[in-house]
């Protein structure tokens, strides 16, 4: 059987997309690709029908178990505390752990079960990973977060995977693209310093030329995101009206973090009036020589405090976004001294001592982050803040997949009822399936986050495809005197017309609504474009074959 280039293009697109979607090792990927491409080869070169059937079933029999059993075993590291020994030794996000102390790890459950117990006398953890073996002489739980290895390279949007999103607008300022780029870099630096690595920050503009900053983070609470990106983070340390230093690496050269000798919670106390608790934290920072000079110059003129001569008359006031956070006494011996070491303190509160402790720790971490990363060049206002539950997202994902399968079956049955030809029905099924695989393949390659409207777009895109196929089928099975070629040409006119109307109708969505609906436009446009370039020509070919016989 001679196979035209149209079928070859379809098979190449299918093989390529399948490999892109599946998260399997490269050798298996290669094998999957080759096996899919062997299908058109078999159809072209085998002579008899029996060999064809035998070879094709053999391909399927080999392909299915490969796809099922080739998924990588182990757990993948999703975050490593950057101050831990694990980070220092080279463990990084993305590395796959396959065994602990010789025990094979297939999933997170195995990982938890095989972690050494703190009670065990043996103080050694040996990790077998994708980047070689690591040995740590400890029996403490590693300072890393792991998760199961995803089976596909597909990424889902916040509404399906859980997380938080903020849309920010600069207050009273129109920003150039450069300013926006600066904002993007400071914001992402701040989130990274805080310990969040899975951040998607983008500048989006709309049809009226407004510019927004869109921040999406998986697995963060709304409150944390609000404080981390909603604050300008303009930190100032003042004595009277004179500024000693501000946040950012120009003035602050070092901030002590995760080191109990120079950072931590000092005391926790119960507040006698309210009954709540509050905890005080402190950490040290190093100032640049210029900032230290400034400190000397300003303190020189101060007198000793009259009630307590240990301290100077004025305090060091710490302001965050123009709000006083804390006031620190300045030791008498620091008067006029060029000091580079400064202690910063603050407090957190809560209903119980534990809550106060956690709140204080959280405040400290945020203040440290701001001191390190400096303030944002512009004040931002949160204009939209969303968070979605990962549990609900999982439920929604499951339901959408089930719905997709049901729709697929209903449409296939309708096609069969209408045309009563198994070959035509199979052709439609193959086309619908190919379109889904190609859209998902493209989404995997460019790491597109598929959200619920995006998946609605995929289903709609495939729906457009089915409509086109119906037009092709009706024209091909028509009993008119005109040639098949002419009729298919007319079908193509209708199809191309329909393609362009949907294409232009969806286009404006890329610029409206801060890009929140671009997923819907994107998947639809990818779907119909893949349809018109790849699957429609192939389906026409299939119909020609079926009608020719």
């Amino acid at each position, binding site marked *: 059987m001679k196979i035209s280039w149209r079928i070859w293009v379809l098979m190449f697109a299918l093989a390529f997309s399948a490999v892109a979607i599946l998260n399997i090792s490269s050798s298996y990927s290669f094998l999957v690709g080759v096996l899919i491409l062997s299908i058109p080869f078999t159809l072209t070169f085998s002579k008899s029908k029996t060999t064809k059937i035998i070879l094709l079933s053999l391909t399927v029999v080999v392909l299915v178990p490969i796809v099922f059993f080739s998924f990588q075993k182990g757990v993948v590291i999703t975050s490593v505390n950057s101050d831990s020994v694990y980070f220092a030794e080279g463990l990084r996000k993305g590395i796959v752990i396959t065994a602990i102390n010789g025990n094979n790890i297939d999933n997170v459950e195995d990982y938890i079960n095989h972690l050494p117990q703190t009670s065990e006398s043996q103080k050694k953890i040996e990790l077998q990973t994708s980047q070689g073996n690591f040995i740590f002489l400890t029996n403490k739980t590693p300072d890393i977060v792991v998760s199961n290895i995803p089976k596909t390279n597909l990424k889902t949007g916040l*509404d*399906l995977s859980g997380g938080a999103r903020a*849309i920010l607008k600069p207050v009273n300022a129109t920003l150039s693209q450069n300013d926006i780029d600066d904002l993007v870099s400071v914001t992402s630096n701040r989130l990274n310093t805080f310990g969040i690595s899975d951040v998607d920050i983008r500048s989006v503009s709309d049809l009226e030329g*407004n510019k927004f900053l869109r921040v999406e983070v998986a697995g963060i*609470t709304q409150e944390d995101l609000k404080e981390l990106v909603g604050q300008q983070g303009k930190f100032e340390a003042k004595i009277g009206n004179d500024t000693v230093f501000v946040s950012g690496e120009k003035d602050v050269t070092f901030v002590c973090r995760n080191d109990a000798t120079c950072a931590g919670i000092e005391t926790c106390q119960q507040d006698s009036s309210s009954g709540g608790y509050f905890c005080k934290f402190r950490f040290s920072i190093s100032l640049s020589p210029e900032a230290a000079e400034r400190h000397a110059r300003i303190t020189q003129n101060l007198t000793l405090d009259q009630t307590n001569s240990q301290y100077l008359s004025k305090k060091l006031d710490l302001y965050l976004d123009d709000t006083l956070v804390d006031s620190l006494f300045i030791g008498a011996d620091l008067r006029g001294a060029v000091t580079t070491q400064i202690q910063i303190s603050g407090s957190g509160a809560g209903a119980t001592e534990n809550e106060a402790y956690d709140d204080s720790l959280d405040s400290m971490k945020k203040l440290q982050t701001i001191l390190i990363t400096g303030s944002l060049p512009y004040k931002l*206002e949160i*204009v*939209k*803040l*969303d*968070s*979605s*539950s*990962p*549990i*609900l997202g999982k*439920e*929604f994902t499951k*339901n*959408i997949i*089930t*719905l997709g399968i*049901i*729709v697929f079956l*209903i*449409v296939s049955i*309708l*096609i069969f009822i209408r045309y009563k030809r198994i070959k035509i029905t199979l052709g439609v099924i193959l086309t619908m399936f190919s379109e889904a695989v190609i859209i998902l393949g493209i989404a995997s390659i460019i790491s597109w986050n598929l959200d*619920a*409207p995006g998946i*609605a777009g995929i289903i*709609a895109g495939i*729906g*457009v495809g*089915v*409509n086109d196929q*119906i*037009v092709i089928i009706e024209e091909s099975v028509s009993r*008119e005197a*005109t040639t098949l070629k002419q009729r298919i040409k*007319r079908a193509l*006119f*209708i199809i191309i*017309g*329909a393609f*362009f*109307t*949907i*294409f*232009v*109708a*969806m*286009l404006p969505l890329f*610029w*409206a*609504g*801060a890009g*929140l*609906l671009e997923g*819907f436009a994107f998947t639809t446009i990818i779907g119909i474009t893949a349809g018109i370039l790849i699957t429609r020509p192939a389906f026409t070919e299939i119909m020609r074959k079926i009608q020719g016989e």
Partner: protein
Amino acid sequence: MEENKENIKETKEKTIEQKKKFSFNYDKHYKKLLLIPVIIMLFSLAYLFYFHSQTGEFIIKDISLSGGTTITLTGDFLDQDLQKLEQDLKAEYGDVSFRRLTESTSGKTLTFVIESHANADELKASIEESIGQELTHENSSTEFSDSALSGNFYRQLIIALIISFILMSVVIFFLFRSFVPSLAVIFAAFSDIVMPLALIDYLGIKISAAGIAAFLMLIGYSVDTDILLTTRALKKQEGTVNQRIYGAFKTGIFMTITALAAVLPAFFIITGLPDSFRQIFFILALGLGADIINTWLTNASIIKWYCEKKGIR
């Protein structure tokens, strides 16, 4: 055997007769058929303008387009009696509304949605106080939109809708290059938006940003049957105009039926779906329904009229 053959012959004759009758009736009455969509359309437009005079808007905007907070409770909250929560919140906020999303297969409540124009922090605090349980990012989803931004979104999406409609019209004119048939398609597309919109307003359903996006898709999606009809009627040489329209109808109605079959299960079989997804499918379903009227009564009648005038046989 003989009898059977007779029967078959009889039925065949019957169908031919019916077809003739259909053709006959259609020739005589097609202009009257045009009245049906025109009346529906006038009714819809009148209702929309009445609605606008009452509310100042053509749609009922949800929180994403008007500003405010949507909090979706899930998980163990749903085991509790939420009546008290409803009462507490109603007492505190005048504009609060509640919705339940139920999974049709199991009958279990999946989410409980609370909407208000209030600020997220306030609403959250009130809910926590009423239930006596903390809202975490696991057991709840929150959506807050600033009213200025939502207004901006709405304006943007309406501009997008207009641009989308204009671009679609340009494509249609380019495809057919004749005035009346193109205008017929464009009018059908316009009706595909207006009729569902009037129904949605009448039913009091709120439209979200995703819903307006669905209208954009509808503009492109619904015209494929019109393109099919116009192409078959004008470009095909075989048969009479009636036969060609009837042929296009058989193809087109099946296209719309399959499309409806693809979107309707989201309301009868699997209902536990995100709001954005449901809204898109809901508007597509209404639009496809309206499209049956607008393609096969409006557009078909205009095309037939046009063919008669132009002497196309």
